[in-house]
């Protein structure tokens, strides 16, 4: 299953890119947004600390970490931003 991941603000800086595509091996259970996040966090360990603070969206619709994803989905991860 192939998904597009969009990263914003600090997450983008950490990964060095705003958009990346990832293939996910089908597991025993359905793949969730959280699975995608954890795979990314393995690739970019500095992301790991953000897990509890980010919000996520699937195909531009706010979604939780347990949301089940499908082939071709676009998954966005957004850290909070406080600047004013």
């Amino acid at each position, binding site marked *: 299953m192939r998904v597009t991941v969009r990263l*914003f*603000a*600090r997450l983008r*800086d*950490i990964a060095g890119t*705003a958009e990346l595509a990832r293939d996910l091996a089908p597991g025993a259970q359905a793949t969730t947004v959280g699975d995608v996040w954890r795979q990314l966090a393995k690739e970019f*360990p*500095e992301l790991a*600390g*953000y897990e*509890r*603070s980010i*919000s996520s*969206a699937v195909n*531009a*619709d*706010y979604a939780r970490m347990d949301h089940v994803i499908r082939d071709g989905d676009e998954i*966005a991860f*957004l*850290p*909070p*931003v*406080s*600047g*004013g």
Partner: protein
Amino acid sequence: MAKILIPTPLRPYTDKLDTVDASGATVGELLADLTRKHAGLKAHLYNDQGKLRSFVNVYVNDEDIRYLQKELTPVSAGDTVSIIPSVAGGSDDRGTGLAAGSAVVDAARPVPQLTNDEVKRYSRHLIMPEVGVDGQRKLKAAKVLCIGAGGLGSPASMYLAAAGVGTIGVVDFDVVDFSNLQRQILHGTPDVGRSKLASAKDRLHAINPEIQIETYETALSSQNALKLFGPYDVILDGTDNFPTRYLVNDACVLLGKPNAYGSIFRFEGQASVFAAKDGPCYRCLYPEPPPPGLVPSCAEGGVLGVLPGIIGVIQATETVKLIMGIGEPLIGRFLIYDALRMKFRELKLRKDPECPVCGTHPTVTKLIDYEQFCGVTPTQGDGSPLAQGGTPVPVNPATEITAAELKQRLDRGDALRIVDVREPNEYQINRIAGSVLIPLGDVPKRYAELDPDEEIVVQCKMGSRSAKAADFLRSVGFKRVLNLKGGILDWIDKVDPSQPKY
């Protein structure tokens, strides 16, 4: 059958309808059906040769047909076709003028008449039927509270003042600093050192002397927020730190007042309208604050000067729409703007039934201690962390060294290794002589360059990033690691004023 969205200037020819259903397999057939139903439109859409006029652009589901198959572009049932004539004023009316419903202004408040001077001043509003005299009077009756007179509060309050919002309140307690001028356009160079509120009041009154400016020189807190917000119709959140963001959100939910939200970081901005009736709140999106130090502030991460101009003006736009009850508000929609790529994206948000503040069984029913909630402890001397715009890290004196102590120890000839964990572009601006540069992100890869038996002082701009570096070094076995309190800024203040600050 497809839906055709009719822009405002053409609605006189469609019996004022903003949407017309028409049939046809292509755009051309659809438009032919439309002009059969509303014959008056024909002369406006087509020239004498029967060709679409060049200033009429047609979009199928947001795609310009000029880049598809022009009038032969196929249309399927359920497609949305928009007719978009060019508009000289630089705006682009996609004709989706769904009313926002009732205005937010307190219905019991008298709606004042406009004076002759005001009619002249607001004439470009008054001639638009969507605003008109009624809309302008609603603006005059309205009260908007801007939290912060900084990057977002500047453009937002200036446009609200110009637009004729009758009462604008501004909460801030800072003093104008040189480093503010790159983006905080309320304040000018002669204002450096003045209170931001005094400067804001002068600027807003210069733009529009007809309106009331109320200033509150105080730190917003759980003790004063509900009282301060009470008289206002819309709260515009332009603060720069998480504790105040959550405080503003919760107070807006508790009082049932909409929060025109905006936030910025480096080249990206976010905007939404939270806490509106039936809409989600900030906590539906971010139930928990990030741990202190995780998300850099503008002071730490920087911000493009024009960025708050875009986001603050979006907040002002939403505020004005809410007051007049026109258009489609940014409720349940989260707008993300990327200045570098010049892209806007939108996420759909829903009210979370489990939200601790606005959900069906709220657990937060009064304001709490937001500094504690965000894991921030007040530092002494500089006032509360709410004042600092950063994300201060809890302080442990045993692991810190002050600028004065560091100077003393260096003068004494103590063997100290100073590690600067800022970025190279910051190191170019100023540095402590003899320091080595290892940016925070590189510390895990490069700590082997350091001697674990040596005494190490880590340092950044203000002390947050270096606190994280210190924690990391200790976790990999470094025994003697001290964090320079207040970072290089404090060093320059207390020890080496010859260097520039940023």
